[in-house]
Every structure is written in C-alpha cells, then in structure tokens.
C-alpha cells in the first residue's frame, strides 16, 4: 500500500491558499484585463514585448506565494508541493503573465541542491527575487548533460535556449558543463557578459529567451558532477507545475466554451443543445479531470512516495499535454467565427496551451520513457 495521504496532502491550508489565489485573479486579472495587457497590439509585426505587471508580482510576494515551497529554514512557508500545484492551476486558469511558475521551477531545482548557496537563493526567492532556470540546450532537450554552456573557474561561456520568463526574472539557475561534469550556477539578470536575446514567441502570456554567456562570473549552486542529479531529482516536481498550469488553462477553456454554448443560439437553440458540441466538450472535461487527478497524485508522490514520483509525473505531463492541445482546438472550433478573431479571448489560452504542451518534454517524449520503465527496453525492431 502507498505512503500517500488519502487527500493528496491537500488540507485546509492548501485550500485556503488556492481560494485566495482564485479570488486575487478574479479581482485583478480578468480575461478583459489580460487581453488589454498582452494583446492591445495585433499584427504579425507587433513589437516583441514581455507584457506583464510588476505590481502584481510585488503583491504576490506580499502574499507569500513565491515562498510557498521554500523550506521554512530558508525563510519560506514550507508547504507541500500540492500547494504550489494548486497555485499553478490558478495561474493557468487566469493566463497569468508573471515569473511565478518559472520561480517555482527554480525553487524545485534549488531545493534539490542542498548547498548553502542554494539555500541563500531560496531565501532570496522567499524575499521576492524572481528566478528562472536555464537548463536546456539549443535543441530544447533537458536530459543529463544537455547544455551548451561551459564553466571554467566560475566563469560561464556559451548559450542556454528556451529560458522561460527570462525578461521577467531577476536571476537564473544555469546548467553548465565543467571538466568534472555539469554543475549548476547562479547568475544575476544584470550580470556583465550576459545577453538576454528574446525569442519572438506565439504565446502572448509568457516570454522566452536565449541567454548568451560571454565570460560571466557565476556563483556555484552545486559543484561540477552534481548538476544533472539535482535536475533529475527536481524533474518530477517541475513536471507537476507545468501540468497544473495546463489543467487550469484547460478548465478556463472548458468553462468559457460551455458558457458560450449555453448562450449562443443557432437554429433557434442554444449551441449546447447539439451533441456535436456537447459531447466533445464532455470529452474535454474527461481529459482535464484525468490530467488533474494525475497531477495531484504525482505532486503528492513527490513528498510522500518519491520512488514512484517520476513515473507519476510523466503520466501527468503526458495527459496534460494532450489535453492542452485538445481543449485549445475545441474551444476555437466551438466559438466559430468569433473564436477565430483576435478580439476573442480564446486565442490567448489557445496559445498558452500550445506552448505548455511542449514545455519540459511533450506527451510522446514522456510516454516513450514510461514505456522503457513499465514495459522494458525495446529489443530489435518490430513491423
């Protein structure tokens, strides 16, 4: 039998935090405000800006959100991962543009470092230092050793691609290859020699960049040879955060489309009367609930059943990624002509979902690795 608490470790404190977050977004971050913030300009040639509201970040710091999964001895709240997962779900539901999820990802990695430097970085996060991770190579792979950054005598050279919320973050946790193996290093956003080259991305609610390091002084978070292990240890939690974001955005797409189907009439009937709309929407709900249940189970496993947490987290990310693409597609289709326009809010969440599905490995990637674990390595070729 499992070590997991029956209720996923989701107790009253976690519920209160989640409800507070939902209220915060309902008050400060309605889809209208989101659209005004990130989609005021249209056109393929719109300027590449990282649209977000720094005041919101300050308020979140006040509310202690970035500190939720920072250990108490590092000045954090020390709540279980499900708390951050619940917040990530609300972030997704609001399409919130901020460095919060990136900071959660960094927190997961730093929690796995176990060094004083990492502990200090966690303290800073609890204090409001937004932090992101730069641990994927140019191809977007994040397996062991996947980095194009090198480190010699504490100085970094090279390039880290697909860094999330790079223009919103104050600090980066960077994987770099050293003669003795990969280590993790802390770099300030303003550090000399660091260039943040923004990607132009489709998703309007995030930003992404390539970091280039030309002789950047860095603080060692874990010594060479231990970086990959720290990332591997953090990966299940990171996948849970990414999945929860898609679960929340999927729920927004579901409820918004259901609301449209209740009110929009065609052939003198509400759209939702037609099973061609109703049944696919129900399928979206089934996909969302499957992804959500798997995500909370995986998050609970991270704290209570670590030996199974990676497999559970891959299941969650695989289910959430496919769900993200499905909910995005059906929401646009069922909104019809209006859903195909820039003025309609649906495309904001559509694009966020398509971004989320490939983040930290797509569904196919995680299923292939699950197969190796559950079915066993493949022998030869079959046809």
């Amino acid at each position, binding site marked *: 039998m499992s070590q997991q608490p*029956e209720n996923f470790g989701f107790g009253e404190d976690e519920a209160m935090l989640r409800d507070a977050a939902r209220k915060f977004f309902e008050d400060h971050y309605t889809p209208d405000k989101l659209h005004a913030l990130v989609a005021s300009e249209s056109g393929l040639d719109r300027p590449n800006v990282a649209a977000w509201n720094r005041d919101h970040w300050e308020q979140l710091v006040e509310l202690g959100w970035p500190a939720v999964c920072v250990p108490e001895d590092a000045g954090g709240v020390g709540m279980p991962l499900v708390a951050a997962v619940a917040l990530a779900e609300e972030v997704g539901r609001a399409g919130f543009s901020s460095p919060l999820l990136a900071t959660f990802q960094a927190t997961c990695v730093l929690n796995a470092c176990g060094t004083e430097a990492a502990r200090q970085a966690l303290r800073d996060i609890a204090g409001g230092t937004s932090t992101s991770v730069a641990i994927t190579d140019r191809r977007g792979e994040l397996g062991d050793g996947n980095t194009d950054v090198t480190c010699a005598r504490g100085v970094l050279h090279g390039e880290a691609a697909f860094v999330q919320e790079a223009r919103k973050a104050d600090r980066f946790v960077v994987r770099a290859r050293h003669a003795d193996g990969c280590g993790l290093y802390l770099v300030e956003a303003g550090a000399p020699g660091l260039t943040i080259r923004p990607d132009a991305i489709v998703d309007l609610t995030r930003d992404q960049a390539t970091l280039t390091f030309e002789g950047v002084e860095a603080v060692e978070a874990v010594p060479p040879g231990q970086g990959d292990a720290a990332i591997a240890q953090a990966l299940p939690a990171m996948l849970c955060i990414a999945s929860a974001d898609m679960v929340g955005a999927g729920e927004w797409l579901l409820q918004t489309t259901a609301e449209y189907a209740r009110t929009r009439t065609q052939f003198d009937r509400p759209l939702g009367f037609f099973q061609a709309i109703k049944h696919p929407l129900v399928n979206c709900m089934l996909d969302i609930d499957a992804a959500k249940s798997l995500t909370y*189970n995986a998050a609970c496993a991270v704290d209570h059943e670590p030996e199974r947490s990676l497999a559970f987290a891959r299941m969650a990310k695989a289910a959430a990624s496919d769900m993200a693409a499905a909910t995005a597609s059906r929401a646009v289709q069922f909104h019809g002509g209006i859903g195909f326009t820039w003025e309609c809010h649906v495309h904001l969440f559509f694009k966020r979902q398509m971004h989320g599905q490939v983040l930290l490995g797509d569904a196919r990637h995680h299923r292939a690795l699950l197969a190796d674990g559950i079915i066993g390595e493949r022998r030869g070729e079959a046809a």
Partner: protein
Amino acid sequence: MSDSGAPMGADTSERDEFRAYCREWLAGNHPGRPPVPLPLSQLLLDDRRAVEWLQGWQKSAYDAGLVGCDYPVAYGGGGRTDCQVIANEEMHAAKTPYLVNIVGMGMAGPTILFHGNEDVKRELLPPLLSAEHIWCQGFSEPGAGSDLANQQTFARRDGDHWIINGHKVWTSLAHFADWMILLCRTDKGDKYGGLSYFVVPIKAALGNGVTVRPLIKMTGETGFNEVLFDDLVVSDRYRLGAVGEGWKVAMTTLTHERGAAALVNPAAGGMPLEEEGGVRTSSVASLIELARSEPRGVGTAADDATIRDELIQLRIREEAQRQSARRGRVPALTDHPARLPLQAKLVGSELTQDIGALSYQIEGMRSTLHVTDERAPAGGLYPLAYMNSFGGTIAAGTSEIQRNILGERVLGLPKSK
C-alpha cells in the same frame, strides 16, 4: 494505492477504530479461493456454485458488520456514518471477493430506504444486506433502452393489488434473484408522470406470472435474461413512492447506481479475478504481459514502438481513473460534487473496450482464434472480452447517454432531446 478520503472535519477517531477492527477481522476471515473462477463483474455471474459461495461470503461479512455499516440498526444496518467506505477499502486491501448482491446494495437498498414504508424496510433490508435475498433490476425493455421513461410494462390496479403484464430485458442475475425492482406504467396518458415503482418477489412467482429466459449475447454466451410478466399479482404494500411518482423514485435508484449519491455501495472487492484461465482482460498490466509474449516482426508486440505508445496511453488512463476515484472523495479538489462520480462508468467501460481493441493489434492473426481453440493467445479471452465490453458501453446508460448527463448536469448545457 489507498482509496479512502474522509470528508474534511469528520470524526476520524471512530473511523480509525472501525478501520482497525475491519483489518483485524479480515485478517482471520478471508474466504479463500472460489469453487469456480469468478467473472469480471457480479452482473456476469452465470454459475450457481459461484453465486452460493459469494452469498456465504457476504453473509459472514454482514454478520461481522462490514456490510451495511451506514444503514440504520432498525433495518439490519450498523448505524454508523461514513464507515462503509472504510470497510470497502479494507476489503479491497484484504483482497476479498466482490459482494454478490450488487443490485440489492447499489440500487434496491437505497431506494427502499428512501421510499419504502416502515414495514417494507424492516422486511426487505436485512436479507438484502446479508445477501440472503439476491436482487435484480427491471428497468430495460425492448422499446425502453436509453429512453428509460418509455416503459410499456403495465400495472393495473385491482383493489389493494396490482396486476402486472409486460416484458423486461437485460436483467442481470434474474435467474438467481429472489426480488426485482420494477418500473411500470400505471397511466398510458402521461410519459413521465404515468410511472410507478414496485419491488416484486419474482422467485416466489416463477411459473406463476413470471417467466425468466436467458438472452444470447453476440459472443454466444448467456448471462443476461429477459423476464416476462403475465398477470403477475403484486400487493400494493410493495409499491415504493406514490402512484405516478415512479420516475422520481427511479432517479434515486440511478443516482446511487452512478455512485453520485449518499449511500456507498460495498459491492466492490479486491480479489484479483482470474476469470477462466488466469488472465485479467481488463487490466493494462495483463495486456502488457500479452504483448511481451506475442511475436511480431523480429521481436514481440512489446517491441513495437507504436504499440508501446498505445499501451502506455491505456496505462495512463487506468491510473487516471484510479486517481479520479480518489480525488472524488476530496471535496476541496472537486468544483462540482457529481463531476467525478458521473464519469466513472463512462471512463471505465470505454477503457475496458479500448484494451480489448488493442489486443487484436497485439495478437495479429492469432486474434482470429476462438476460446475453444487451444492455440488461442491467453485462451482467446481478449477477443471475447472485447465483444463483451459493448455490454459495458451500452447497458446502464449508453456512453452517449452518459455524455448527455455529464454535459447537462455538470456543464449546465441544455437537454439534447
């Protein structure tokens, strides 16, 4: 994985004691192996020896207080609160067999408790919980499948009795049942308001107004029955709810059947089912075993990357189903109380069907072999299970009806009728 989940703030000390008691009792009272292999579901029981063995097990679990915990003591229950779920978990963990009287406890019991008069409750509930009386369900008719309200079986009032004539189909367990819950038309002029609800002692009336005949499934197997009523006389005391309120009463029955209601059904056990021949055709793990043993190309089906991907997709759905059942008991993680319970039957039956469908891809040419061919992989049970899986997606509300219910009750969409 543990499946419990106390409503937040419930008194847990009593529940913890009860859990300890169940665990201890079960440790010493497991009934062992059945005399014959059990089918995947009680509804498929077709062998009297299995039925009698299961009745014996339910009786002893009932006598020990593990069945009907949450029913009032006056009706043979344990008089506890939120405890059946604990007994269920412990029975699941102790791998005891499922309880045979599933229609009784899942459908008839709650309906009698909420709509029966005092005498009827005292008369019928104790032998129902002890499985002394097996119950079956008489809702489906040739003309009333998804459209349940289209009942044609007619009950004519005659003093303080009713004369019943009609034809029910797909009545599982009818050939073993002592009692049936029966939905009848009492007014031909009013579709929904013209129905009344009865409990009927069918075994006592066999050959005397009641005929039970087996239906033959597409597999060639029997298991379901049709039940014919020819001037069956039933006392008015066995009517549940007022005349013309049968539809409302039936909704109580169906809400419990769908697990979206108050009383928890203890019917599920935890014994790994061997079915005929040690294969559990409804589990992805067994399908993976099959894939490992079936040759394909230069290797086995388990080496084919696309089959592997589909196996893992099924495995993920299987885990999601388990975790959703668990999450369904954590109110803080469910926005709508019926959202997850109403999904269970749909998701489970379609997963079983998709497992069956993939088995053909794994077995290849060998999937053409019948259970009676000794060279059939896994005894030919997978193609058989695939065909039987349509019972799951059709009976007790087709998958199409389940999607209507979810869209209407949970998403608030208008009825598609």
